[in-house]
């Protein structure tokens, strides 16, 4: 499984990831395509993703801000409405008491029956009143209507009595009092005709107030309740403690207006707190209205939106990265391949230039040597003539031998210079139809005797029927002759030489010449077509044979390659086109010496 995965990865690996041709390295424009690839991806990725992410973050902040202000506004509105309701609730009851003390004579008020009647009417009108009492300036309760037996009670030291006497009106906190039921006391001070005052006091049940408040509770995340100015919870709260407990958060600062702000509560949760100090037109009250909304809960819808946006941005970023990676890979690979083609051309041009320079050198050297050679030839020839033609010293065999060896050396030098010049020569091609079978047997005819003498087996394997190509007969002959010569020099007695010609492709013919001779070490293989490279003893080879062969194969638009193993043999493979188009031989060979 892993192997298959690795193979799959390898197959999609771009070419520049496994650059192999070390010899081309100096010709490449860039040194490291992997680096270009990574830099490309990073740059494109950053330019594409940074604005996207920045815009997303800005968008989040904007949403956050507008959501916050929306929440504040909504909380403020709820608090404001609830405040009005609570204020009205208190005002209404205070006004009712004021109306009673202004409208009804003191004498009637202190009459228990009358007072009970008033209480009954008040209950009908407003509800939620549990009792009604009249208190004399001394603090004694002079009249009482209600369920408790409270007549004659002295309130002179009570806070509400002192406050009411001082301020004419009084609204108490919610407290349990003697009766152990949460209630509010409201009291109104009034004057009798004789100038003395009395106080009408009513006890309010908290239920109505709580109902009024809960009517403003919107949603499960909202908590709306009253606290006293000292922070005691007055009406039931969902999250911030039981009634009469002290609230576990800092008390809001006094403000005459309804306020809303974002804070954290005792559980470190972000909340929107709206509050208002309840104050009626008639009297101040000890109540602070609290509206607390859990921000987390309110934000649910936005969280869902966040989630969607995050997904969208994430998926978009992934797509962008994938597209960028693919594009970068494609472009860098194209760049690499173009560069590689350029590098190959440059390497080839340089190689050809080297060969051309060597060709020119060869031509120059050959030409310069030919003249003194000619002179040596004629001088030695003349000396020989003197001995042979004039017959004076004809009998001196040793002298003759020496002169002959000079002449022979000159002949040999002449052959070398001619070969050098041949290498430098402009190759002109004369195209004709050639049967490969014929040309192979022609070439082998030169070696029949040597093969027989040295006991070398020569196998020729050519398919039945004509194997024709259109090429230059002389050049092809020279190529084969050079390679066969080479093979004969490489093999020992009893070895084997195989020549095989075949047509594997309609456009090309392949000729393979392999021997079972001494072979070559692998490090020599890349050099064997270079001029003057030879492994033969000095003086035995010119080191030009294979260079000329290479040049000739190229001239015929063919390819030559070599495989070899030491002591196993060497194989030359020549691939030639079956025909050379007219005009193709016009691109003059750079081997030309002139």
């Amino acid at each position: 499984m892993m192997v298959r995965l690795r193979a799959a990865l390898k197959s999609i690996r771009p070419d520049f990831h496994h650059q192999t041709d070390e010899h081309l390295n100096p010709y490449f424009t860039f040194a490291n395509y992997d680096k270009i690839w990574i830099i490309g991806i990073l740059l494109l990725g950053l330019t594409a993703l940074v604005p996207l992410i920045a815009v997303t973050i800005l968008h989040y902040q904007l949403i956050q801000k507008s959501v916050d202000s929306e929440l504040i506004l909504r909380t403020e509105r709820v608090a404001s409405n609830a405040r009005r309701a609570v204020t009205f609730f208190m005002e209404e009851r205070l006004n009712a008491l004021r109306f009673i003390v202004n409208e009804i004579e003191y004498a009637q008020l202190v009459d228990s029956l009358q007072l009970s009647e008033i209480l009954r009417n008040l209950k009908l009108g407003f509800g939620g009143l549990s009792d009604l009492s009249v208190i004399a300036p001394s603090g004694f309760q002079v009249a009482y209507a209600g369920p408790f037996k409270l007549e004659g009670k002295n309130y002179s030291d009570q806070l509400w009595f002192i406050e009411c006497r001082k301020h004419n009106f009084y609204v108490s906190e919610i407290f349990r009092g003697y009766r152990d039921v949460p209630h509010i006391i409201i009291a109104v001070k009034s004057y009798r005709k004789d100038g003395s005052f009395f106080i009408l006091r009513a006890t309010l049940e908290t239920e109505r107030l709580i109902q009024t408040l809960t009517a403003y509770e919107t949603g499960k995340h909202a908590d709306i309740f009253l606290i006293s100015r000292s922070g005691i919870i007055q009406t039931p709260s969902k999250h911030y403690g039981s009634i009469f407990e002290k609230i576990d958060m800092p008390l809001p600062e006094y403000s005459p207006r309804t306020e809303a702000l974002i804070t954290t509560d005792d559980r470190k949760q972000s909340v929107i707190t709206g509050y208002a100090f309840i104050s009626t037109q008639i009297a101040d009250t000890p109540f602070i209205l609290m509206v607390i909304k859990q921000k987390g809960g309110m934000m649910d819808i936005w969280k869902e939106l966040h989630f969607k946006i995050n997904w969208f941005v994430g998926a978009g970023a992934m797509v962008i990265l994938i597209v960028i990676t693919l594009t970068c890979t494609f472009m860098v690979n194209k760049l690499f391949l173009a560069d590689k083609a350029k590098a190959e051309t440059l390497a080839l041009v340089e190689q050809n230039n080297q060969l051309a320079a060597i060709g020119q050198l060869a031509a120059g050297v050959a030409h310069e040597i030919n003249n003194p050679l000619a002179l040596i030839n004629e001088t030695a020839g003349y000396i020989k003539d003197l001995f042979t033609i004039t017959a004076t010293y004809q009998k001196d065999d040793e002298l003759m031998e020496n002169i002959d060896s000079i002449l022979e050396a000159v002949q040999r030098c002449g052959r070398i210079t001619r070969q050098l010049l041949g290498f430098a020569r402009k190759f002109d091609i004369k195209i004709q139809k050639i049967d490969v079978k014929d040309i192979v047997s022609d070439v082998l005819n030169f070696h029949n005797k040597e093969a027989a003498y040295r006991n070398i087996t020569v196998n020729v394997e050519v398919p039945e029927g004509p194997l024709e190509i259109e090429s230059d007969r002389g050049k092809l002959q020279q190529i084969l002759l050079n390679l066969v010569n080479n093979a004969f020099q490489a093999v020992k007695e009893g070895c084997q030489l195989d020549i095989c010609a075949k047509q594997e492709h309609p456009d090309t013919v392949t000729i393979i010449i392999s021997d079972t001779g001494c072979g070559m070490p692998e490090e020599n293989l890349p050099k064997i077509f270079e001029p003057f490279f030879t492994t033969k003893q000095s003086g035995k080879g010119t080191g030009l044979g294979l260079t000329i062969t290479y040049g000739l194969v190229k001239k015929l638009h063919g390819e030559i390659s070599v495989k070899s193993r030491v002591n196993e043999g060497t194989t030359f493979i020549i691939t030639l086109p079956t025909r050379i188009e007219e005009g193709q031989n016009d691109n003059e060979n750079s081997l030309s010496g002139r």
Partner: protein
Amino acid sequence: MKILLVDDEKKFVIMLSKRLALRGIDVDYAFTGEDAVKKALSNRYDVAVLDVKMPGIGGIELKRKLSGLDPGLKIIFLTGHGSENDFKVGAAEAVHYLAKPIQIEELVKILYEING
């Protein structure tokens, strides 16, 4: 048979002329094209053996001049260069073309051949 040898390699010309003389051939020689033209004006030759590359008047030009003087004159070119292009020009212009270093027997054979 009288032949004219022209080459700027003086020693080569002298040696070759001596060798040909030893083979019974009447040889005259010149080291420059100008000298050769002068000699051709005052003598009649059967064959002229010319070096292709010479300072001043080259072999090809000299051949034209000599042929102008004597249309029946036969020409053999010699060259140290031995390139195919030289061969082409030489073969088109002259009867024969030999690359240095030459084989004296071959030259003699050719001389007799073209003189019938």
